[in-house]
């Protein structure tokens, strides 16, 4: 067990290092940072000084080793545009993304579970089939398209909810969150719904499959024989038994929620780290792009590692074949 664990952690570290190389050399190809940093009428001496200050006059491998050395100390460079440390900048924007993803997860459960349970209950009826066809749309609709439609309906036409931006925030342990203020929550509803739609379809499918399996079990027959109402059987007895796989999958999907947030945040001008990434790509702000990618990759590696370790603890069979990275 310990050997497996150590091997798995070593693997993760190797992956992290490999991604570091790919990200650094990949991003190195983007534009010339000098053009953004220095005004066109700067003297050659000023250009040289700036290049030396940022280390651009060094050969690329030296730059890479400096980058790795700094990265290991938690320093991923300084934003060209904001003049702040890239890591600080991303950490500043991160809570907005995380609270959006969290609300999105809640929405996807609230929408997906009832629909899925009902579709499983009426599996062969038209209601069940309609929900399943609907979930195909949930899977295939582009994220930004849904967001646009929601803005058009609820913000432009009906004027029920604000369209873009982030509302009031409340300081919770020094972190600005809008989920706890009424005004801020209003701003969050549309983006969180957009983010939730894809996951809601996934949850619907899982819940339907689980319900179909659970309905033929003995405990359901027993509950029916006892005279428990169908609603109570579905939403108490069955629900308890199907939630475990749903929660597991949603935990796994939290990472991809953060990735999808890039699109949603751009649509709703939500000031999270996804919007920061897009703005940085458009302004060629190299350190922020590198820092974002490194931090997201790290989040994914950690999620995968934790999931693998949990699986190994829960299911000894995994140990024999070895987990996936």
């Amino acid at each position, binding site marked *: 067990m310990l050997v497996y664990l150590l091997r798995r952690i070593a693997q993760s570290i190797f*992956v992290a290092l490999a991604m570091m190389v790919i*990200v650094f050399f*990949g*991003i190195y*190809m*983007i*534009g010339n940072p000098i053009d953004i940093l220095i005004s066109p009428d700067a003297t050659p001496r000023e250009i040289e000084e700036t290049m030396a200050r940022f280390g651009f006059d060094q050969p690329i491998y030296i730059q890479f080793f400096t980058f790795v050395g700094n990265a290991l100390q938690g320093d991923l460079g300084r934003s060209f545009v904001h003049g702040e440390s890239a890591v600080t900048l991303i950490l500043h924007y991160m809570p907005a993304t995380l609270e959006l993803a969290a609300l999105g997860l809640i929405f996807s459960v609230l929408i997906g579970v009832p629909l899925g349970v009902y579709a499983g209950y009426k599996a062969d009826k038209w209601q069940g089939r309609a929900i399943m*066809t609907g979930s*195909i*749309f949930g*899977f*295939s*609709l*582009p*994220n*930004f*398209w849904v967001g*646009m*439609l929601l*803005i*058009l309906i609820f*913000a*432009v036409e009906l004027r029920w909810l604000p*369209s*873009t931006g982030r509302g009031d925030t409340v300081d919770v342990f020094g972190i600005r969150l809008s989920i706890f203020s009424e005004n801020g929550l209003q701003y969050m509803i549309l983006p969180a719904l957009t983010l939730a739609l894809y996951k809601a379809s996934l949850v619907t499918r899982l819940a339907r499959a689980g319900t179909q399996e659970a309905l033929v079990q003995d405990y359901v027959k027993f509950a029916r024989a006892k005279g428990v109402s169908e609603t109570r059987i579905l939403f108490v007895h069955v629900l308890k038994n199907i939630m475990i796989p749903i929660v597991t999958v949603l935990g796994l999907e939290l*990472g*991809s929620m953060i*990735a*999808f947030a*890039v*699109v949603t945040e*751009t*649509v709703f001008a939500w000031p999270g780290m996804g919007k920061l*990434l*897009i703005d940085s*790509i*458009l302004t060629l702000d190299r350190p922020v*792009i590198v820092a974002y*990618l490194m931090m*997201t*990759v790290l989040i*994914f590696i950690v999620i*995968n590692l934790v999931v693998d370790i949990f699986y190994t603890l829960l299911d000894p069979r995994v140990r024999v074949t070895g987990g*996936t*990275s």
Partner: protein
Amino acid sequence: MTETSIPQTAQHPVRDRMLWPAIGVVCLATIALALGPDWASLPARIVLFLAGVALAAQLLKGRSRQFFNGPMAYAATGSLVLLVILALFANEISPQNPYDLRQLDIMDGRLPPGATNFDGSFTYHLGTDEQGRDILSGILYGLRVSLSVAIVATLIAMAIGVVVGIYAAWAGGRIESILMRLVDLQLSFPSILVALMLMAAFGRGLDKVVIALIIVQWAYYARTVRGTALSETRKEYIDAARGLGLPVRKIIFRHLLPNCIPPLLVISTVQIANTIVLESSLSFLGVGVPVTQPSLGLLIANGYDYMLSGQYWMSMYPGVALLAIVASINLVGDRLRDTLNPRLRK
């Protein structure tokens, strides 16, 4: 189809012989259409369309009753064929060439649907964008860009995936585990993140979008093909071919490969829809196709700024076109999966 009968390739020899050239023609013509310096000539596009129809007819031969199981199947197939025709013949159909600046009039900018130009000689049925471009023409050209980028990327990714997957399954051992580790690694990151990372490094461009979409997808095909190939190599017809002393090259290309293709075709249909969505998301974010060749996603992004002021048509109609193409491909893919899936076929 029973598992224990004679080699499966022998069961539909005609179908296989017809299928391969058709796939080849569609492949080459699409690539020519999408990446050629100028858009392919009219006869080339007609040939492409007919080849596509022939391929579809060949695939569904004898199974059309099963495929068209309800009104939804007819509607989806009909709208898909219509949209493909619109995209292929955008040059001929669209009332205006939206790339030709001489045909644009900046005075006609942001006109609502149904408005006419100053002397009433031209009606903008779906309105105009901020540069006075006819939205309808923009959609037809955008549809072509979206479709061809997605098809080309999917085909090339599929080819790479097939090679890697079959090689891994055939070679086994260390090579297989290294290749599959790589596949697992890539698939553990969401495709939008990988694509964004690549586009951040490449910059905008039609060819760059195609390359990014290929890199995003190949692993998915490699994993699927390896799985199919592994289960196929254990079957008797491969043993029989080995027993006959056929060269490895012949076993792989004539026996193994044709049997790995059908499940792949089903996946690739749905995958084209996913690729269209991914490409339009990238273009919407401003890191996809160049401004000079807008896809549907970029058209939506262009009109997005005006949507909040009530000028909905610039984003809305390209959005409807995107929805229509994605939904019809998905529904057709769903029918294809039920019809062609070897596991469900009895």
